[in-house]
């Protein structure tokens, strides 16, 4: 078996995460301390498992980290074709998930670019490499050097939401205190984070927060439209409309929600998130229209799990095994929530049972139960299959539509950073 190396190696990732902490201590002048010594000793453990190439890459990344928050000593060298080619090659390597090489190419080009440009590219590379904490540091550095580029703070806050949710929530609350004075894209992200965070609040408190977010999203959309960014930032405006609709839906104002989804789709008829949001609201009451919305979202190659998930449920209920399998598999690839993965695997199991593939069916039931061990419906369906080898779909308990309607919209992130 090939050893997973560099950013695929958990030991490397652990070392790099600790390295980030060490650089933070160094910047604060606090590393020559017991805390610093203890941290370095912790670093010995993952370091023991790194090979020489990994050590070299970690050391180069450490050198990159020294550029954070330091004044640039010199102006960039004149631009040369080789430097531009290195940047382009770096982006290509990033797309191929060759992150160590991508970062190395950025170093080659660095003397010819401003520090903020290279550090923004480093942040993007590290975000793709699954190190959002480090990415956030580089984005923040870029935004401090170039505050006039609001996308840098947007990316910083997005990365921070993955790396340190509590810190992201605190930053978001601080940003929204003066939301009319901040950039609307940053406002959108801060409101998005606080909307998602209401999952962790008691209902009454969540309702208060969501009520408070309504004017924030409204102002955000208004200013996007006013400053002419509604076309340039169309996916962000559409995402803001989606979440604004969800806010109203959460507060029981379904009609208002629907007007936002309809209004958004008139402006942005190619936005998958709006189709999904409208489909979720219609499913069960106007299922034919809802299925049309979900199909449209899949035609737009939506990255969201929900259109595939709802369509899989719909096709299973219709007895269309082939389409259900296709959609459940597509949903499974995109699912991040355990209960959603479990549902998809259960539906695949039922399809396999009806196709007469008992071994695959039982394996899929078992996999589903790994994600949701306490789910009584899956346990029941598995037992049913074992007892009767039921291959008629009507014999199984299917998720009722009203249960599917309770899918928490706060798991719905319409705009990935």
């Amino acid at each position, binding site marked *: 078996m090939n050893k997973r190396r560099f950013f695929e190696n958990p030991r490397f990732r652990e*070392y790099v995460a600790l*390295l980030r902490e*060490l*650089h933070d201590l*160094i910047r604060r002048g606090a*590393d*020559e301390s017991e805390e*610093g*010594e203890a941290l*370095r*000793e*912790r*670093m*010995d*453990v993952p*370091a*023991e498992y*790194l*090979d*020489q190439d990994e*050590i070299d890459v*970690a*050391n*180069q*990344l*450490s*050198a990159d980290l*020294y550029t954070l928050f330091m004044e640039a000593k010199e102006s960039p060298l004149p631009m040369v074709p080789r430097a531009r080619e290195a940047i382009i090659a770096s982006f290509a390597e990033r797309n191929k998930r060759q992150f160590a090489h991508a970062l190395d190419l950025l170093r080659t080009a660095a003397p010819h670019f401003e520090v903020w440009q290279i550090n923004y590219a480093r942040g993007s590379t590290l975000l793709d490499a699954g190190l959002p904490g480090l990415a956030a540091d580089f984005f923040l550095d870029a935004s401090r050097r170039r505050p006039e580029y609001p996308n840098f703070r947007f990316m910083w806050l997005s990365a921070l939401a993955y790396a340190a949710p509590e810190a992201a929530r605190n930053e978001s609350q601080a940003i929204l205190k003066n939301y009319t004075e901040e950039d609307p894209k940053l406002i959108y992200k801060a409101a998005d984070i606080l909307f998602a965070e209401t999952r962790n609040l008691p209902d009454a408190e969540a309702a208060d927060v969501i009520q408070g977010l309504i004017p924030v999203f409204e102002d955000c959309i208004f200013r996007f439209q006013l400053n002419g960014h509604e076309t340039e930032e169309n996916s962000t405006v559409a995402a803001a409309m989606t979440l604004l609709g969800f806010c109203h839906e959460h507060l029981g104002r379904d009609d208002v929600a629907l007007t936002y989804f309809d209004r958004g789709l008139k402006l942005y008829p190619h936005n998958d998130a709006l189709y999904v949001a409208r489909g979720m609201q219609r499913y069960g009451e106007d299922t034919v229209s809802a299925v049309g919305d979900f199909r449209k979202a899949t035609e737009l190659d939506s990255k969201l799990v929900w259109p595939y998930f709802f369509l899989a449920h719909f096709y299973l209920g219709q007895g269309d095994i082939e389409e259900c399998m296709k959609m459940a598999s597509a949903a499974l690839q995109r699912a991040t929530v355990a209960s959603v993965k479990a549902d998809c695997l259960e539906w695949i199991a039922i399809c396999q049972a009806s196709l007469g593939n008992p071994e695959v069916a039982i394996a899929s039931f078992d996999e589903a139960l790994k994600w949701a061990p306490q789910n009584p419906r899956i346990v029941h369906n598995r037992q049913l299959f074992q007892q009767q080898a039921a291959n008629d779909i009507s014999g199984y308990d299917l998720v009722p539509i009203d249960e599917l309607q309770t899918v928490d919209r706060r798991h719905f992130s319409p705009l990935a950073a």
Partner: protein
Amino acid sequence: MPTIYRPMKTDEDMLPRCGAASKELGVRIPPNEHSDVDVTEENTVVLNRRGMSVGRHWTSLPGHLIPKRLVQTFPGATGSNSLSCYRFGHGEFTDGTITNDLLLALKPNSTTLGNLVPVYEMSVESLQTALGQTRERWVVDEDLP
């Protein structure tokens, strides 16, 4: 005899400090959670190539072991400034005898990293003594290769 490098804390006489703590001339032993060796119930060191870590050169090592005052010559250095990079011996970095009691054992699949390990079964105290006896043969060498 192989040439080996190791960053270590420095005593007042500029020689490495002996001891069983991190970055000292010696090994960390159980119950230290970062123990460098495995120890039997009879308090002898298990001969499994674990021991005091060293490198072919200090530039081969993770940056958190390299004193950060060397950052101009080694830009990834993040180690404590209380460390110095020491060199011992002259020769190729391969498995081989360091003293009568100590052996350089390269780490698996590595040509640049290794451990100083006991040549034969010995007590933990004997290993610490054997390592301590090399103290005066270590010299500070922070030059690039």
